[in-house]
């Protein structure tokens, strides 16, 4: 379950990186409101990335790193899982 989530976020990250440069607009010189349309894409895409990162930080922070079973506490105190976690911890095992 947790592992599927890791893969899911990995795909999200790859898509974010893959389209940060709008390859489908390659060679396009269309100007909208004083700026090239590919620049508008970039502005929007970075906004989206920021939103996705924020969602990730809220929902999945710690995934792939913290041992399974630790909660996503944001107190800033030693934010890592309980003793028992390390038996089951697939945590840091992704590529």
């Amino acid at each position, binding site marked *: 379950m947790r592992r599927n989530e890791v893969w899911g976020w990995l795909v999200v990250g790859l898509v974010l990186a893959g389209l940060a440069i709008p390859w489908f607009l390659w060679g396009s010189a269309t100007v909208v409101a004083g700026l090239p349309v590919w620049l508008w894409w970039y502005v929007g895409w970075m906004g989206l990335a920021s939103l996705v990162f*924020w969602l990730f930080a809220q929902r999945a922070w710690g995934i792939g790193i913290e041992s399974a079973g630790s909660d996503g506490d944001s107190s800033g105190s030693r934010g890592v899982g309980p003793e028992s976690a390390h038996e089951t911890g697939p945590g840091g*095992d992704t590529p």
Partner: protein
Amino acid sequence: MSAVTLQLSIIVGYLLIALAVGLVAYRLTDRTAEDFYLASRTLGTVVLLFTTFATLLSAFTFFAGPNIAYAQGPEWILVMGLMDGIIFAVLWYVIGYKQWLLGRQYGYVTLGEMLGDRFGSWWLRGLVAVVSLLWLFPYVMLQQVGAGTALEALTEGAVPYAAGAGLITAFMILYVVVAGMRGIAWTDTLQGAFMLVTTWVAVLWVLAAVGGPSAATEALASNPDTGGFLSLGGDYYTVQWMLSTAITIGFGVAMFPQVNQRFFAAGSKTVLKRSFALWPLLCVLLFVPSFMLGAWAAGLEVAVPEGANVLPLILAEYTPTWFAALVIAGAMAAMMSSSDSMLLSGSSYFTRDLFRPLLGVLGMVVSERREDLIARVGVVLFATAAFVVSLFQPATLFEIGNAAFSGFAQLAVPVLLALYWRRITRAGITAGILVSQAFYILSLFLTIVPDTYAGWSAGLVGMGLGLVVTVAVSLATSPAAAERRAIYFDRFGAD
């Protein structure tokens, strides 16, 4: 008041403010190495975000970036976005968060320390420090050369290079020794906010003067020299080049000592989360205006003499003298602040990973108080050495300094594998680091080793090579007895 006097007074004013901030920070410090290097791991969101940003990109945002946009078109914005807004942000989590947790749990201050502990090897720890200093030292030297040369140009030769660079070095030493990480982070924050505001004021001012973005872009499109700038891609911006640059620099940034060390300095998990989400927005806010100014300057036919920077020139043409002076002074201050952080981190690598272990071998034990002193002496040595070497203008070091980002990128892959792959062995990571570094350095200096492969840069190819070698050697060897894999995995997370 003439522009020169104005610029000089602004620079001096900035230095005085920095020094005042440094003194305040000094009063707050504990006299320990951890406090000196990492502000005792207490940095908040805004400070962490801006100090990382200012450390990294300040001078580039003002000078080199707009120059490239002026000469080749504004596509660099996209490269920067992918590299810093996405790749580095992801590494911020993947490398940064794990490092932060490990640092908190085991008290690591440097990357070499973290790896040396896991692999049970002083050699590896020293190797990581040596490799890092190999790239960092010339890079610091380049900053000093840049600031010294800029000061010489600004005063029209009244302050010769050696005096200017010497003064700046002396000031930096004083400042870093007094202020430590806390003071540096604070001035970076001031300066980051200053940069953000002045860049936007600058772009709005210029656009108001030329009749808005549509008019500026129209000038760019209708000028036969720059007509191709608006279409995405071109002879300079090829797909391979854009990807190679974004990937190598993005990974390289995460291994730059002054950036990597900031992963240890965050105050809490919340700080890391917030800065992570804000990162892409900050990239848009800074790069779009400054790089577009560079590109628009080309359409507006702002003449840029060989070796000059475009941003001061377009400001001089469309904004009042005092404002242009303010931006230039800010940019110089930015250069200095990048060097501050590099000095501090460089000296921490030197004292903790090379010098102190050496004392240990000789049977000497270093107290916390004593280490704090050694750390400050390390700053003096590092900065003085970089300054003295810069006087000789060594061509080899210039080349290494310019290639620093790709050089650091070679470290990133073995480090990532160490953090996430259980099968990695000491022999594997050592071989991966050595082979990729050797390959990349040879590609710089030997014509036999090409620097591009079907358009892909040697930096990127070297990263791939590092991956293959680390994995292959790890699979072929078994862990050494002293290795402590559990630190990163099984026992990780248990208090």
